[in-house]
């Protein structure tokens, strides 16, 4: 998959975009799609960071028409050709995944945060070490889980849930003390879904930054074109203002020490 | 004197088939009563009803004068006092012969294993089955199965023994043995009701023979009388046909 395509590469093939359906950008997202990434499970509305980004991208690439489809996680990562141009639902870019599919350049650098009951033992944690003896949880397919395993290394194996809903339910049932989410999701969850919990802290970044990218079928010729457009959106500050609008609305949260 | 076992106006239907049509029959203690009659006349059904395996629709079954067919009677208690051997023996296929015959005494009567097995071996030996004690029913011939079933019924020293054509699967050599065992039991005071197609057997062993026809007892008499001088026309017909078949 990683056939040396880079964002700075010559994008001359992009004069006529190699789209699945000419004249329209077919984009897949999750089912359901949720805030802060997509507003109201309605990407057509353009609310939410990812939805807004796609529309900005389409404008940048001169495509008038955006058509949305939905896929589950499993269908997104299945082998074979796809019937959409790309899939955007907070996929983290990793080398292993690049063997199977192609990614665009990163459109967002993710930080991890831990949430827990405000009145619990976890609330007093000041460092990552303090988290070791907690029962932690994360949703499957997220880099939150990788973060727990690689950087926190808790005494008890972290519980792994199908989705944010299950993680929240386990929290309600008292089966986990803390859940790790990416920061934007954590903001949203504590504000709307688990109101008796709060973000206990942002987790310190380890190693190379984790980036979200759009997912393409292996060998898609569209990748350089999207990368070029993304670079332009970065340069003109569009992406930054979208981040401010949708993702950085939580005020200041302390970052835990190592 | 109260009869050991008495059936009074017993009726029984299966769905729309009226099988027993007002059976009246008394069996005194120490008495052997044979039920004879054409196929389907209800012999097996009577025995099943007496053992409370089928519930009767109407009438009474008295054991020692008590109405055991009444509501509220615990049928298990009644059955523990009787033994029955079925036409198609019905041994338990998953148990060895020894386990088959000791199951009743051990579980229903609380006899301990050793005592039950000792008793079983004596009886099995008497019926020529001592070497089959560890075998499974389905690996034995029909005759062997039927003998084991007789032993099973005798194991609990029943007050009344009900036998449903116990000799039909036996070879003639063994019929004599079974006959003598039954004679012995009768002498020792066993009360017995036998359904049988063997007129010779009935004549030989019975105190009374009851002729059944279409769910009714047409006549009851000592065998000498009944065979020599049948009263009902239907009885005469039946006995004549049987004689023709060379079975009397």
């Amino acid at each position, binding site marked *: 998959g990683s056939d040396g395509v880079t964002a700075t590469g010559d994008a001359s093939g992009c004069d006529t975009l190699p789209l699945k359906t000419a004249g329209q950008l077919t984009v897949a997202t999750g*089912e*359901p799609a*949720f805030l802060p990434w997509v507003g109201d*499970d309605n990407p057509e509305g353009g609310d939410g960071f990812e939805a807004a980004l796609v529309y900005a991208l389409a404008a940048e690439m001169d495509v008038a028409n955006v058509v949305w489809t939905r*896929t*589950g996680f*499993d*269908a997104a990562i*299945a*082998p*074979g*050709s796809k019937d959409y141009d790309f899939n955007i639902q907070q996929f983290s870019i990793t080398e292993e995944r690049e063997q199977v599919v192609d990614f665009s350049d990163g459109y967002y650098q993710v930080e991890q945060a831990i949430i827990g009951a405000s009145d619990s033992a976890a609330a007093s944690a000041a460092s990552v070490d303090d988290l070791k003896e907690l029962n932690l949880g994360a949703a499957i397919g997220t880099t939150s889980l990788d973060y727990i395993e690689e950087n926190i290394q808790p005494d008890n194996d972290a519980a792994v849930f199908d*989705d*944010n*809903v299950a993680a*929240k*339910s386990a929290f*309600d049932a008292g089966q986990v003390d803390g859940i790790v989410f990416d920061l934007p999701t954590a903001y949203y969850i504590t504000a709307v*879904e688990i109101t008796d919990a709060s973000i206990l802290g942002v987790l310190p970044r380890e190693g190379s930054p984790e980036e979200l990218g759009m997912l393409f079928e292996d060998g898609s010729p569209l990748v350089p074109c999207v990368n070029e457009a993304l670079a332009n959106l970065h340069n003109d500050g569009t992406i930054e203002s979208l981040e401010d609008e949708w993702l950085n609305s939580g005020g200041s949260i302390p970052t835990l020490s190592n | 004197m109260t009869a050991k076992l*008495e059936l*009074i*106006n017993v009726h029984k239907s*299966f769905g729309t088939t009226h099988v027993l049509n007002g059976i*009246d*029959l*008394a069996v005194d203690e120490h008495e052997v009563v044979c039920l004879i009659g054409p196929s389907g006349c209800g012999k*097996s*059904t009577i025995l*099943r009803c007496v053992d409370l*395996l089928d519930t009767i629709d109407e009438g*009474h079954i008295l054991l*020692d004068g*008590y*109405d*055991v067919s*009444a509501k*509220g*009677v*615990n049928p298990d*208690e*009644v059955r523990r006092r009787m033994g029955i051997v*079925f*036409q*198609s023996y*019905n041994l338990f296929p998953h148990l060895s012969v020894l386990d088959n015959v000791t199951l009743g005494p051990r579980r229903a009567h609380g006899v301990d294993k050793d005592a039950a097995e000792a008793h079983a071996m004596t009886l099995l030996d008497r019926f020529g089955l001592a070497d089959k004690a560890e075998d499974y029913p389905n690996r034995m011939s029909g005759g062997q199965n039927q003998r084991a079933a007789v032993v099973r019924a005798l194991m609990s020293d029943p007050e009344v023994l009900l036998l*449903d054509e116990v000799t039909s699967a036996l070879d003639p050599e063994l019929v004599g043995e079974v006959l003598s065992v039954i004679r012995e039991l009768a002498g020792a005071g066993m009360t017995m009701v036998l359904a049988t197609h063997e007129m010779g057997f009935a004549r030989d062993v019975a105190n*009374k023979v009851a002729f059944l026809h279409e769910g009714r*007892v047409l*006549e*009851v*008499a*000592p065998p000498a*009388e*009944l065979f020599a*001088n049948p*009263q009902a026309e239907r009885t005469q017909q039946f006995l004549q046909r049987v004689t023709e078949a060379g079975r009397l």
Partner: protein
Amino acid sequence: MAEQRRVDPDPLELNQPEVGRPPGIFAQEGFKSSLIAVVSTVVVFGGGALLIVNSPNWPKVRDQYFSGEDFRASWPKVLDGFWVNLELFAYSTISIAIVALVVAVMRSFRGAAFFPLRALATIYTDIFRGIPLILLILLIGFGLPALDIGGVPRSATFWGIVALTLSYSAYTAEIYRSGIDAVPESQRSSARALGLTQWQSLRFAILPQAVRNVVPALMNTVVSLQKDVALISILGVREAVREAQIYTARTFNYTSYVVATLLFLAISIPLTRVVDWYTARDRRLRSQAPV
């Protein structure tokens, strides 16, 4: 002879059969123990229910699982999905019944000549029963179309049904087999003795009895298939459970699952009752064995 014949017994002595019962014979043990069982069940379940309803967090839990509002909100979508379930269910039931029968019949042939057939059937059941259905659906539903072989359909629904059929027919074949094995050997002898071939013996003498033997087990499979059809949603098909999941993921409320469950029960319970009733009638008609 006359004194031996019974003539109408005095019915008067029967008027009080209860008097003087020997001890132990009369008992209503059945009724008593049944009563005890029911009362204790009611106490346990009723007590449990009370405890739940009075627990501090009950209102919260109730709202999350049994909220009237969410019930109404999720109902239309889940119901839409349920029609998809029924369609998939109908197709897979048919293909499973056929494949399972073939496999079971293959396994029940006798004789050395049929060894390869039996071995094939055995391998089939072992493998497809052992592979988790989820993997089978992933492998077949994503893997096969990905191969891009000309003429191979890409429809997720199609491949989902194929995967369900492979897995469930292995289970169902084993059920058929247990029914076949429960038919006494002597029935097979009888049929062969009539000059019927092995296949005819199976078809006319053994299978009809075998299927009757295993109706409850088959019902089990049908009920469980009805629910496992939902796994095809991995391939992107939006059936009832998937719709419920989507609703839950959006609202963090599980009531949509309860909606799906009620729809499933609305099919499975009447189906079970009808089959039970039919089985009982059949049994009454044919099998009241006089001993």
